[in-house]
């Protein structure tokens, strides 16, 4: 009899079947893996990314600290703050404009009929505005102090007005000290002349807002919201 079990023919058939089945299973597993890797996995990644973005959007909406503040309130606040900044900008000079003070002092002397015998800049120093800026941050405000030493002569009343106007007509300026003494000279009308030695200080401020990370803004935001409300 042929084809009995135990004969090489039957064993060969069985081994072939097992090998074929193993190959088919392997191919199916490979195809399934490739299909999952090529189709499902990228989709799963995209969905995960989309979910994360959606969560971030929802969180941003739910954590909106200024949700109750209206646009009109914000615009009103911006207008108010802008006007404050503009007032300071108009009142002060920029650090690069300190030379204009010389002209301003000359103009005042001419206006009040005071003769400037000597005018001499006293030196400049940088002023620190607020806490020191961290690395990578830029200061909102950069200040500079400029001083002059003047020797003027004129009638007492004119000199007094000149001293006062140094504070009132030259913006953010201050008369630090002065010393008035009589002069031996007389004015044209025979009026006595005084000599005054005056020290002034002038504050120059740079208010140019810089884009990017600005010191103190994030902390001030909450306060601003409170203020706006």
């Amino acid at each position: 009899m042929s084809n009995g079990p135990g004969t090489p023919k039957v064993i060969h058939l069985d081994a072939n079947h097992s090998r074929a089945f193993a190959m088919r299973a392997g191919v199916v597993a490979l195809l399934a893996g490739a299909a999952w890797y090529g189709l499902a996995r990228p989709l799963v990644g995209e969905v995960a990314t989309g979910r994360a973005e959606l969560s971030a959007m929802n969180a941003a909406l739910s954590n909106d600290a200024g949700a109750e503040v209206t646009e009109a309130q914000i615009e009103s606040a911006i207008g108010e703050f802008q006007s404050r900044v503009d007032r300071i900008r108009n009142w002060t000079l920029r650090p690069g404009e300190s030379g204009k003070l010389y002209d301003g002092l000359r103009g005042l002397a001419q206006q009040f009929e005071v003769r400037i015998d000597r005018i001499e800049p006293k030196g400049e120093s940088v002023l620190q505005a607020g806490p020191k800026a961290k690395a990578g941050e830029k200061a909102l405000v950069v200040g500079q102090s400029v001083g002059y030493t003047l020797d003027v002569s004129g009638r007492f009343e004119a000199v007094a007005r000149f001293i006062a106007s140094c504070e009132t007509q030259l913006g953010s300026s201050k008369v630090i000290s002065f010393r008035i003494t009589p002069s031996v000279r007389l004015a044209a009308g025979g009026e006595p002349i005084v000599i005054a030695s005056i020290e002034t200080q002038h504050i120059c401020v740079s208010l140019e807002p810089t884009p990017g990370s600005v010191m103190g803004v994030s902390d001030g935001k909450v306060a601003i919201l409170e203020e706006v409300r």
Partner: protein
Amino acid sequence: MPRREETILGLSPSCLRLATVRGREITRLERIMLDPAQNEAAWSKDLRPLDAHLEILIRTLDLARGSRVTIVYHAPTVACELVSVAAAPAAAIQAAVLSLRESLAGDPSEWLTNCRTVHTDPGTSGQPPKVHVLAVAERRDNAEVLAAFAARAGLLVRRQIPAKSALLGSAVREVLAGASGGKMTVVAMSDQATIISSAEKGGLTFARCVDFGYSQLLEAIVRGSAGGNAEGGLTRESACGVLFGVGIPRRGQVIDLASGLKAEAVLPGMQSAIQRYVVETRQTLRFMLADGELARAAVHLSGPGAMIPGIAGVLMGQLDLPVERLSGGPDPLGPTIGAEDQRGDLAVLASDDEHLMAISPPSASLRRDHQRLSGMLKVGTAVAACLIGGDVLLGVRAGADIDDQQAALAPRIEANSARQGRIAQAARLSATAALAEELVLSTLGERPDWLASLSMLTRVAGDSIRLVEVSGSFPPEAKRHPVLMLKGIATPTASEGSLVQSSDSLAAFIDRLSKHPIIRSAQLVSTRSEETDNFKTFVVSVTLQSLSPAVPVEQASSMTAARLSSEERH
């Protein structure tokens, strides 16, 4: 609900049968008679000579390819044995396996075996009941030949049942059923085997299978018709008709009118076959029954061979024992006396399906394993495809859903972002304004009204006071308050006809200073009298009232005006 139709293939040396069965009822049956002399040759050629016959039967019954078939077969290599042991069923089965293996030729691994307990006798006191185990063995290669035979015809083998084991098991149940109240001896007559069994009061006395059947009677008719006057002899189908129509003929009787075949032509061969029945039955009864029981024994005939007319009478005359057909009568689904039961051994399969012992060839189990594995692979592939498809579908839907939600939120996010930008702008402006104001105002500090202070001096001094030096500063010892340091000379004056001393003039001057609203305090620092002319030189320190500075409210500030005037001059 009607059961599914199944297919049965019966293979014996004399006949190839194909039938369909629904439940236990054979619904369709076709057969082809075979020459038993060609049986050995057919098996040696892997049953290929029978392929054409099987194809004819399949076409006749219009069976579809791939139909599952149960094969009941006679093969020269099948060994079947009923082992009776007074032991526990498990031990009895072990004993049957050992007994069967001892009777098998060659390596035991070349054989497929199956054992089953067919009956356990009622127990007697003190002794374990006798357990009757039916054991069957078939060569592996023969089982494979049979499976391949069916496979070549497009049939899938469900079970392969050796007919001997089926007949033996059926005969045991038949004799036990008949001897439930007393004693019975049954001779089951199949075409290829005869089972002689006896039982008493629920206990099986013996059961013996003899490889001899009524096909010997059929062969005697065929051979007799070929060797007599009949031209060419009878076909096996015609001989079958004669056997079951005429039965055991009498001398001088014409048994086939068409051919004129007479009883004398077939009786010698038939007598020889009948003699074999008689000898096997008598010897079996003599050896297996107790002394004295043989004389009282009555023999009942069953099986298809019991339908042969006159067989009972002939056997009774030669056995000298009462012989009759089994009292149960013929099978209602079978033929009546004098007609052949064409179902043959398939009748056993149809009547007692669940107790049949099957031989499963390794190829069938391998095929089942492969089918199971293939099915599992297909299911796994489908599940994987469904999972991946579902994953992709869910991913696509989730992605679309997220896109929709993001699109719905986008305007709000954009508006929120713009608003946050505006709020940040406001914060930046506020911080800028606060820092700048704080820088400028804190640096400037408090300031007096210098013009008013100096103007006040000319009014307050009067004629008696002559100032020679006026200086203004913010000395640290005055806590940075504005201070006027006045140096001058106090002179005596005449007032309303009297002379006012310089000291009094100085005191009055200081008093006026102290009372002036823009002066915080006035103190005499030093004084020195010039006795020659009654003058007093003095130094007076005047601390002024001061005001906190403020950023001018007007848009066009003084600085802007100064800047403009400067530009005009240029």
